[in-house]
């Protein structure tokens, strides 16, 4: 085995091992939705198997002559090009010319390293703050059923925000609600309880922000909080959601930081 030959299988193995690890530890939830779990496990396991099989296979290949220059150092075109027969002979001598790794493949190391290098990776207050407080439009003519269960009701943050901003809070009046989300500081003081919603992965995240009115104090960005309170109407026409808080308590970040 020349040093370079087994690089391809090793790259695949490392990629697969990292994917399996992310899936088993639940860290993958910072990047994609829970439904991807089995897909990721399957592709991760497949990459690991492919990597091991490839490494074994290429180690069994007969050792090439050390003095033989690798094919990548031979001129294949231009004035210094070798005759086609010579190239063909070298290709045979090397035995497994196909296992050469395309240079671009080295970039696969980049996401692997970033997973390890960049600490707490879930999207948070930065993404939410950039998106702004306007609540994204729900599917056209979506119908809002009355909130079920005893008080306090526990809707998703996006559900509360859509009812508040796009249905004038009709189904929220008279109810006490409890929302879980992270803190996004408000530019003019105070803060939003916020949550990101994804359909597939973090690249399509949409931010839902609820302005919390009457909170006892401010919290640092990205603090996870549980807020109990009641619906507070916004100015007519403004597509923003508000909540009067009666109780705020800080909590640990949940395993699934995104809503679906």
């Amino acid at each position, binding site marked *: 085995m020349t*040093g*370079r030959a*087994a690089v*391809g299988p*090793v790259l*695949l193995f490392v*990629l697969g091992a*990292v994917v399996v690890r*992310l899936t088993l530890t639940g860290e993958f939830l*910072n*990047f*994609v939705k829970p439904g991807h779990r089995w*897909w990721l496990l*399957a*592709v991760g396991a497949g*990459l690991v198997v*492919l990597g091991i099989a*490839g*490494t074994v*296979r290429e180690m069994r290949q007969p050792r090439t002559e*050390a*003095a033989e*220059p*690798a094919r990548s*150092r031979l001129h294949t075109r231009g004035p210094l090009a070798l005759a086609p027969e010579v190239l063909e002979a070298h290709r045979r001598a090397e*035995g*497994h010319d*196909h296992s050469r790794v*395309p240079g*671009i*493949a080295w970039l*696969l*190391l*980049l*996401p692997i*390293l*970033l997973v*390890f*290098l*960049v*600490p*707490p*990776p879930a999207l*948070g207050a*930065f*993404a939410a703050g*950039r998106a702004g407080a*306007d609540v*994204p*439009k729900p*599917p*056209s003519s979506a119908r809002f059923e009355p909130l079920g269960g005893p008080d306090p009701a526990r809707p998703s943050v996006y559900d509360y925000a859509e009812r508040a901003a796009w249905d004038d809070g009709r189904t929220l009046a008279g109810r006490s609600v409890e929302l879980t989300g992270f803190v996004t500081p408000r530019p003019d003081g105070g803060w939003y309880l916020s949550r990101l919603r*994804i*359909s*597939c*992965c*973090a*690249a*399509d995240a949409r931010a839902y922000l609820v302005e919390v009115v009457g909170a006892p104090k401010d919290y640092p960005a990205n603090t996870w909080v549980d807020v109990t309170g009641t619906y507070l109407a916004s100015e007519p026409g403004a*597509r923003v959601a508000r909540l009067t808080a009666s109780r705020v308590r800080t909590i640990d970040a949940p395993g699934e930081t995104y809503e679906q």
Partner: protein
Amino acid sequence: MTTQDRLAEQRRERRERLRNPPTPPVGVLVLVGVCVAAMVGQEIFVVLAGDRPALQAWSTVFVAIVLQALPFLGLGVLLSGLIAAFVPDRVLQRVLPRRAGLAVPVAGVAGAALPGCECASVPFAGRMMTRGVAPSAALAFMLSSPAINPVVLVATAVAFPQEPMMVVARCLGGLGTALIVGWVWARFGRDVPLRPPRAIHAEDGGPWETFRLTVQHDLLQSGGFLVVGALFAATLNVAVDPAWSLTVAGVPIVSVLVLAVLAVLLAVCSEADAFVAASLTGFSPTAELAFMVVGPVVDLKLVAMQTGTFGQAFSRRFAPLTFVVAVVLSLVVGTVLL
């Protein structure tokens, strides 16, 4: 042997050594590097970069794009590996009509059978070309598959519950784009240098070794270019302020163009783009349709993967052609149906 001869001999040896240094066991180095990064990477990173939320958001979006695409890339590469290793050439050539004019619609409709997103179809189309399928037909398959497969259509129906015509419009727009681009390519694309992947044939080890080498090569190559595309898409995702698109939401033609460009820049997976389109406040249904017709056929990560698979000369012509056809067709279909 004279002294001069000996000196010359030594010089030659030294030059030889310089030209062919002993290759280090690169595979082992990669393993060690990743393990070290896993153990102490975060501490070092915090010291070097500090607490940068924009950098963290960029990293998350970048890794997310790669991670969500990986299973689909795996599926596409697995199928194309099986075709490369086990399906004889003549079977493929018998399935598709000989004339390009007929092969294009057959391949385009067949795209509905590959239930993945766009990342799966690029390496697959590459291998079909290697096995002798006409480029125009393989390209029609590549464009139609991510746009009209059942998974994507169901996702669209879920995202637009009150607008069933949106599913029909998307299906027509996606398939239409694939067929028109396929026919245009069959007629005018002959002279464009197209570099399909080389056939891989294992000298020993039989079809399974051919399968393994094909899968390995396609994964490494398409995966590498997927990373390039994800780098661009994540950067724009974090750098571009989403509010700029809202200012033109009400303007008829401009809003369609703006959402088409947004689809190219954001590189959202075709299985999720319907949800993103549905949440864009204030845009007309036609503009939302353009977002969903353009996204699966032209976006940053796709252009990167197509460049890697078929060469630069190809994607310089193919991506603009596809973009124009997709936008015009969205306008037509949207005006008639929505």
